[in-house]
């Protein structure tokens, strides 16, 4: 059984604002019977641009009904501009949270609101030319990009919880992964690393050896000493057990070099020198 908050159950059992506003200023329907949930949202706007009435009709589970009820309660009294800023997270928060598999219910609310506002403003909603990624639930590339960006999503599973995309046959999982990777790469452009001076490099390497590397090596009776730094080349000498160990070469590349690349600078090359 789902762990619904009291607020979700309250809005499900006693939904507010059920119905259709007569002669609505904005209206939209999202979802479909095939998908298992659908929401029709209608609202009325006064001369000051304030939403004076909002009503919904929902086909769907308890949280879909609750999210729609919450949405209408939230936007009543808001200006259209204020309403346009609502996110799915705001709806989920209003309800005291939603189970993660049900977040798509709040996303559906936000989508309906957005479409209804576009309808009110007379902006034609983008339609046919949008690229569908998930055929099972008809989810577009734009929708997926948007939830990934707004909610900092990292996995296909999360995208499925938010949009249902990928929850059917699973054929689009690769495409979703690509979108996640792309959006996340855009969101975090690689910061240009400050160039380290040789002295800074040496200090940082010494620090890293001391803190991260030496304790590990010493467990096996080995040790390591920094000899010099030349450009990207980090010259080291092995000591103790490492000096006679057949595996020392692997340890240097797989462990020492990997650690230093991670913590100091990524292009460095560790090389062993005699003595």
């Amino acid at each position, binding site marked *: 059984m789902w762990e619904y908050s009291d607020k979700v159950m309250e809005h499900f059992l006693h939904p507010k604002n059920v119905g259709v506003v007569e002669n609505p200023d904005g209206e939209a329907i999202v979802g479909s019977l095939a998908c298992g949930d659908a929401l029709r949202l209608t609202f009325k706007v006064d001369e000051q641009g304030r939403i004076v009435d909002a009503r919904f009709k*929902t086909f769907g589970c308890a949280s879909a009904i609750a999210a729609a009820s919450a949405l209408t309660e939230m936007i009543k009294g808001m200006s259209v501009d204020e309403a346009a800023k609502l996110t799915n997270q705001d709806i989920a928060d209003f309800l005291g949270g939603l189970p993660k598999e049900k977040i798509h219910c709040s996303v559906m609310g936000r989508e309906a609101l957005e479409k209804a506002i576009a309808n009110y403003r007379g902006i034609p909603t983008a339609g046919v030319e949008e690229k569908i990624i998930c055929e099972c639930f008809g989810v577009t590339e734009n929708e997926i990009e948007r939830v990934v960006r707004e909610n900092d999503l990292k996995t296909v599973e999360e995208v499925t919880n938010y949009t249902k995309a990928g929850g059917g046959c699973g054929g689009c999982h690769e495409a979703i992964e690509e979108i996640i990777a792309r959006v996340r790469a855009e969101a975090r452009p690689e910061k240009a690393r400050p160039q380290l001076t040789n002295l800074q490099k040496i200090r940082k390497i010494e620090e890293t050896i001391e803190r991260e590397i030496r304790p590990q090596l010493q467990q096996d009776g080995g040790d390591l000493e920094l000899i010099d730094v030349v450009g990207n080349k980090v010259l080291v000498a092995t000591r103790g057990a490492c000096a006679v160990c057949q595996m020392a070469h692997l340890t240097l590349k797989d462990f020492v070099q990997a650690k230093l690349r991670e913590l100091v600078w990524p292009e460095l090359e560790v090389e062993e020198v005699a003595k």
Partner: protein
Amino acid sequence: MTTIYLDNNATTQVASEVLEAMLPYFYELYGNPSSMHFFGGQVGRKIRQAREQVAALINAEPDEIIFTSCGTESDNTAIRSALATNLGKRHIVISRVEHPAIHALGAHLVKEGYRVTELPVDSDGRINLDQFARSLTSETAIASLMWANNETGVIFPVEEAAAIARNKGVLFHTDAVQAVGKIPIDMKKNAIDMLALSGHKLHAPKGVGALYVRRGTRFSPFLIGGHQEKGRRGGTENTASLIGLGVACELAARNMEKENTHVKYLRDKLENALLTRIPNSRVNGDRVNRLPNTSNISFEFVEGEAILLMINELGICASSGSACTSGSLQPSHVLRAMGVSFTFAHGSIRLSLSVYNTEQEIDFVIEKFPVIIERLRGLSPYWGVGDAVCATMET
């Protein structure tokens, strides 16, 4: 608020007779049946009796019964045993509507390199025996078809299927978890090689099951360990539960007639009343070849989880094949295999009764259910005043 429990295909109440028989074996009679002393030996004797009781319910020999921890273990044991004793054969046949204990195992075996044929069903959830016969090849290690479907109650002709399999030299297993105790089963009159049953579906506790293995069937154990169950299933016996399962089987044999008269009468009354009082409703699955206790009904343009939570407020417990109840986003694989349209599949409810349900309870459900469906349809954008505004608004 009293509970009206109509979810007996999910699990059942432990019968008071069963509980009573079990209790001493948790405390005073805690001996290990394998022990040499009288204290363990008396428990061993009681387990022998339980084995006889289980065997009697399906007219099998006691040595054909292996106790397990659940239906899933019994199913896995049967399939794995067939594969282990037929090493050259790397094909199995199942149906699309099997319980996950078989269905998910099939998917897993595909990853292990086996070939798995999933037989389709028709819109009433029925299998085609000719198609079944054609699917069996010299490569087939085992065919496994459920006796009765857990979601719809539809009964497969497993005895005919087993005869076909035997003719072709293919082992036949049946997941009879939902059938045992609800319909008569006589293992002396069929060619089924292995059969899985589960305690908690017939008023024994959870955590106990059994696998019937016909004498002479080559067998490879799933759990390797001690000599328990004659080396066919290692692990110290769950003594109290095995004894409970024995009593539950005896009880089921005694209640078999009531199950097929009283329970069936209540189920039919409930089903017919809901179909009459609620427009745009239908029964999913073959209504003739069906368990006497199960009804799978769909209500168009409403969603199953919402129905369940609404009836839950009245103390009524049931299940749904809707997507939202599972978290899988897709309606039940059984309803999809039957080609049930989305408008009906999302609004499906499974009502499953037991001998403990009363007519009063059923009358209460008949009174309340239509109101709830009407209330939810009042919220639905696909439902007009009184009749369906068809899915024209679909985006």
